[in-house]
């Protein structure tokens, strides 16, 4: 895992390979150098144009959330003089409960899922990476298989299980599986990480008399903080944005997370409170955006090594 060199996002650009320390570059005839810089300018122009196209809908969403309802579609530009907070005020209470309740519900589910994933996935990963037991290879292959398994194959029976347990309409179906390492992605990510740690550390711990529990808690966990951070951030982002699970298990407004609450705006589009819809959409994206800013380094590393989004 550590062999994938990803510069931290905030780091200054690495020295250019075309730096003058390269004697070739100095000797290069001027015309060729001019052509190279023309290509470079064109490349940046293209990339900046693409960046603007990519990001424009997001900026438009944010700006529109501050526009008066009448102006949202008559003025598609992101420049306006009439900025207002009305949409936030109206949107906040338009879904049958104050939006703070939906934010709170999402937060409870997210925190539960993060705690569950951190505990259960790290335990399983330690077993796979450090312990030798019967059927380990078989279980490891099964674990990888569950990553690829479409959730639909287990959907109906899981629904019946939660129904029989009386858990429908509660957060339990969304949290409890995380305590049983249902997100095998993270087990895999942590296995990769623990395997990359030098074996000598674990041997030293054993010589000092540490059992597996101590070796896990006092040696492995502190060393795998980057993998734990990656797991926490991805769990946050996925659980916050998850729509399918809450759609199936939660049916009353008072337990809706943000994702399902937003759906309400689509269901009742005849009222066409576009401003409120945009405002609450923006609010729902703010936590994701903050996670993105804070965890960029881990996000990039996480997807580079495992291919998860």
């Amino acid at each position, binding site marked *: 895992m550590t*062999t*994938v*060199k*990803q510069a931290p996002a905030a780091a200054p*650009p*690495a020295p250019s390979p075309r730096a003058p320390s390269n004697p070739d570059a100095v000797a290069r005839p001027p015309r060729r150098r001019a052509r190279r810089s023309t290509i470079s300018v064109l490349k940046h122009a293209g*990339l900046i144009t*693409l960046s603007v196209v*990519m*990001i424009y*809908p997001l900026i438009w*969403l944010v700006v529109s959330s501050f526009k008066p309802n009448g102006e949202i579609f008559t003025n*598609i530009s992101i420049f306006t003089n009439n900025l207002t907070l009305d949409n936030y005020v109206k949107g906040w209470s338009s879904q049958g409960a104050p939006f703070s309740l939906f934010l709170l519900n999402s937060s409870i589910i997210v925190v539960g899922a993060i705690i569950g994933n951190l*505990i259960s996935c790290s*335990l*399983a990963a*330690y*077993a*796979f*990476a450090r*312990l*030798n*037991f019967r059927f*380990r*290879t078989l*279980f*490891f292959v099964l674990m990888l298989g569950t*990553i690829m398994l*479409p959730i*639909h194959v287990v*959907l*109906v*029976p*899981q629904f*019946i299980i939660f129904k029989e347990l009386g858990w429908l309409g509660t957060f339990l179906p969304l949290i409890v599986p995380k305590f*049983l*390492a*249902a997100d095998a992605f993270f*087990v895999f990510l942590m*296995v*990769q990480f623990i395997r990359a740690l030098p*074996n000598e550390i674990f041997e030293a711990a054993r010589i000092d008399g540490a*059992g*597996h529990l101590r070796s*896990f808690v006092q040696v492995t966990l502190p060393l795998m903080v980057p993998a734990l951070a990656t797991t926490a951030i991805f769990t946050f*982002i996925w659980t916050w*944005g998850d*729509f*399918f699970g809450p759609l199936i298990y939660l049916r009353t407004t008072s337990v809706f997370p943000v994702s399902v609450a*937003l759906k309400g705006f689509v*269901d009742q589009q005849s009222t066409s409170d576009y401003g409120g*819809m945009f405002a609450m959409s923006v609010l*729902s*994206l703010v936590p*994701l955006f903050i996670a993105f800013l804070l965890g960029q380094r881990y*996000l*990039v590393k996480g997807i*580079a090594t495992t*291919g998860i*989004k």
Partner: protein
Amino acid sequence: MSSLGELRNVALSARRRGPRVKTRFTDNKAGYAFLAPWLVGLIVFTIGPMLYSLYLAFTRYNLLQPPRWIGLDNFTQMFSDERLWNSLRVTFTYVIVGVPLQLVIALVIAILLDKGMRGLSFYRSIFYLPSLLGGSVAIAILWTQVFGKDGIVNGFLAWFGIDGPGWISDPNTALGTLIILHIWTFGSPMVIFLAGLRQIPDMYYEAAQMDGAGRLRQFFSITFPLLTPIIFFNLVLQVIFAFQSFTQAYIVSGGSGGPSDSTMFFTLYLYQQAFTQLHMGYASAMAWFLLVIIAAFTGLNFWLSRFWVFYDD
């Protein structure tokens, strides 16, 4: 060995022996103690439900009365279910058009973002952000507005005097807008490509330059062959994920798969059968059909990979 290469071996071939452990003696008790939560989860939430779902696929079951065995009826019904075949066509179009386009763009942009280029981390962030948000309800809602009759796209077209249709409400274009949404999230495969590009040793390019190879020649002789395992890895994963897309189609169509079933993904039809019609047996049969389709596509990908994926080691 590189971690991406290792990942590819572990995740994609399963031929590998399993994790390396230097201690030779076995430690069954501790092993199973640490594995216990995952094992319980595997049995209770995966293997058990899979077996039960397989059973339900041969029954009629509406949650209220106990399941009734009907043999292969669900499967024969699937063959004559026009809406199911339509949903397959929609899903296949989405996968076969969306995934390759997304990967080609991800690869081209990754290659444009040279090592040590100015502003690399800025571009990477900008291009990656949409793939982080893309699966959320808010973005799906935004898409209905961007491609609406009065949306940004038509506003832009109006500058050129073109009167655009309501892209989302027109059955001919609705699926296209979802494919564009998929392509918009090219950032995550791009980051994987960037990591792969970084692992190609500079000396290969230096040697090629000494031999007088141009940039195009360097791409086809060095970059592309060495990157094929990662292209393959991205392709397999993206196909598996794309087959399971749900949220965007649900929100864009208000849960209906409309207009005229043009955004009725297979998973959306499965959801409707299970949770609005309460055809739990039929939905289970559909789920197994989906599993077979995904497995077949993945198998096909592996078979085809023998002809174009190049392994250095």
